[in-house]
């Protein structure tokens, strides 16, 4: 508990910044919905899409179709918020242990009556709670925005169910990146620059996962990116795919187990 609360405290400053920026961005983007409904804006949006290379359109899953519906509009822009959430998740996972090692404070922690597994548990829980708080900020921004711009004709339950699924998908993807980042931080020796590594992890898997959409070949690559398991455009139509969610849960469990096993052998000179 002591380690957990100290970790939360260490994460606090960046968490507040990320939460405020992502929450406000989600809210503001949702509030743009009425403007998107105007035919001029839609025409402009479609014209810009036509001008973009089709590979780029495919990579970022851009489409003007159905954007007039609020759930689809929310799902459309939320994929970009989700990217930010995934980068933050990966940063949290990568930095939680490596920060102590690069700062040299791990010597202090190793001199305390703590097992390696207790260190991982305290840090993992703190990172998870940090991510939950962050994502609550995003969810509040999204839901508040949706409620503010909800057309009267749209059923409240339909909207909330769709938004909830999209948000849940984003949360799971971000959490998956956090676990993978955590495992990587233990497997790589003394990783420095967690933020750049997190970006590399996210964009590496994202680009690899986009290859099938762009080229139409190498279909298996799409499984490399957790985002492809919970793509907002698909989730808003069909809901979360239980099988995909189970796969991501298995990825998280494996990464978590790997972290515990690898870290229990960690030593100062190891």
């Amino acid at each position: 508990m002591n380690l957990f609360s100290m970790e939360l405290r260490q994460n606090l400053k960046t968490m507040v910044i990320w939460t405020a920026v992502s929450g406000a961005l989600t809210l503001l983007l949702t509030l743009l919905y009425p403007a998107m409904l105007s035919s001029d804006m839609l025409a402009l949006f479609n014209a810009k899409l036509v001008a973009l290379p089709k590979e780029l359109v495919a990579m970022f899953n851009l489409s003007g179709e159905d954007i007039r519906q609020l759930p689809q509009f929310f799902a459309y822009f939320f994929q970009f918020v989700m990217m930010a959430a995934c980068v933050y998740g990966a940063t949290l996972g990568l930095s939680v242990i490596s920060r102590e090692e690069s700062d040299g404070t791990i010597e202090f922690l190793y001199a305390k009556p703590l097992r390696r597994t207790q260190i991982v548990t305290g840090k993992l829980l703190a990172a998870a709670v940090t991510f939950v708080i962050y994502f609550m900020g995003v969810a509040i921004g999204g839901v508040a925005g949706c409620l503010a711009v909800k057309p009267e004709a749209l059923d409240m339950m339909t909207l909330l169910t769709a938004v909830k699924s999209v948000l849940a998908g984003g949360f799971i993807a971000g959490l998956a990146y956090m676990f993978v980042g955590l495992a990587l931080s233990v497997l790589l020796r003394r990783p420095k620059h967690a933020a750049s590594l997190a970006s590399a992890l996210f964009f590496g898997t994202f680009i690899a996962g986009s290859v099938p959409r762009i080229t139409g070949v190498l279909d298996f690559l799409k499984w490399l990116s957790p985002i492809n398991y919970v793509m907002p455009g698909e989730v808003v139509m069909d809901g979360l795919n239980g099988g995909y969610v189970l796969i991501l849960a298995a990825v998280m469990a494996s990464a978590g187990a790997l972290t515990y096993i690898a870290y229990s052998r960690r030593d100062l000179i190891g």
Partner: protein
Amino acid sequence: MPAEPRFYDRLTVKELLEYSGRFYSPKADAEEWMRRFDMEPKKKIGQLSTGNRKKVSLAAALACRPKLLILDEPTSGLDPLVRQTLFEALREMRSGGCTVFLSSHNLDEVQSLCDRVAIIREGRIADVRTLNDLTARRAKKVTVTGSHLPETFDGQTMKLVFRNEGRVVFTYHSADMAALLRLLAAMEISDFLVEDISLSDIFMAYYTGGEVSK
């Protein structure tokens, strides 16, 4: 306690010591050590000098009432007053049953604090002895200035350390002090100095391959 302790720079001294103390049951209270080491509780760790960081590290280590203390160069960067406080604290810990491992290049402090000494050479323990044992086996270092100084040394009782014109330094390895006095009386000397070989000389002997203390 590492030689160069590193902590969470954004915490204050008090916050860090409280954080450290909460890992123990009952909670380790560092108030007494903060007072004894004359520390500034509200100062941020990031603003502390090396010596003050060391004091934080010592307070954190001593407050948890350890049964075993491993200290790496505990006095480097400390001012003489704090050093004295630390020595007192270590003697208290020792008399309270705590085993203290102390790594130091300062052999005077080793000599004044330790019961047993391990000499490490090239990463390996070259020898482990009690300080009493080392002291009992100590030879004398003799420095003689004058003319008609001894030309030869047997390499057993007397070993040449240094010679130049009019000055000889040798070690004397015998408990027979009367024989040493007779030897000195036979020389034409203008000055002489007979002293115990220090722990430092003994230590150096392990590095130069000599056997000063034997």
